[in-house]
């Protein structure tokens, strides 16, 4: 999964990048399933690998993007990016290394987790009812915004 994640940013051809991203998301969904999060894993496959990636591929093909030709690379900026990313990774690793719970194994699950859709649904509509409605409004606004953006000025 990490290999295909890296392939996303290494590939020059946007279509190859998008396909690597699909494989990376499928691997991530498998990790979610291994953590007994079946609902999230299936949502990951349906929404990310299904809907969002189709959107990406559609836009790439609509714009007819070719593999970008080699431009003059700004080496100082690239080196800066690599340095900052490496520093970030080292920092994350040192935080995880100091975090004592990170060395513990996962506790066993006595109960069944196959009803997690039911539990998440209850939680979503009881405790998180207001955020759920707000998220609905966010999607509505996004839809209106996309329609407004993609309308041709006449």
């Amino acid at each position, binding site marked *: *999964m*990490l290999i295909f*994640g*890296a392939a996303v*940013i290494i590939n020059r051809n946007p279509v190859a*990048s998008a396909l690597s*991203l699909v494989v990376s*998301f499928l691997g*991530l969904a498998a*990790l*979610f399933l291994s*953590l*007994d*999060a079946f609902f*999230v894993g299936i949502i990951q496959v349906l*929404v*990310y690998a299904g*809907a*969002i990636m189709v959107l*990406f591929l559609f*836009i*790439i093909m*609509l*714009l007819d*993007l070719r593999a970008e030709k080699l*431009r003059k690379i700004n080496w100082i900026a690239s080196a*800066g*990016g*690599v340095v*900052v*990313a490496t520093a*970030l*990774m080292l920092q994350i*690793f040192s935080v*995880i290394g100091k*975090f004592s*719970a*990170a*060395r*513990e*194994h*996962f506790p066993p*699950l*006595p*109960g069944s*987790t196959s009803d*997690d859709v039911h*539990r*998440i649904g209850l*939680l*979503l509509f009881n405790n998180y009812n207001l*955020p759920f409605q707000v*998220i609905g409004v*966010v*999607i509505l*606004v*996004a839809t209106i915004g*996309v329609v407004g*953006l*993609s309308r041709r000025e006449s």
Partner: protein
Amino acid sequence: MVTLGHYLIVSGMLFTIGFAGVMLRRNIIIILMALELMLNAANLSLVAFSRFHVDSTGAPNYNAQVFVFFIITVAAAEVAVGLAIVVALFRLRQTTHVEDITTLKF
């Protein structure tokens, strides 16, 4: 045996890959994909912590999974708006290269 730290390290590496993509790549669409990678890294650590905290009834802590659900929803909205902006920019400028779009550059 897999510990919590393994998932956190994978999550951190995925986040770093996404971050490096945003910093290094110059194609707007690739940058949007790298943003997705970063959001998914956050999702992975949330789900790992959700599995780690087993409550008294023997179930994982589902609050984190509800949060992941919200993140996925917001990410979908963000991608839709972002790609619409990319299409509008492409119509105007015939490019998706960030160095060709410097109108706001000081």
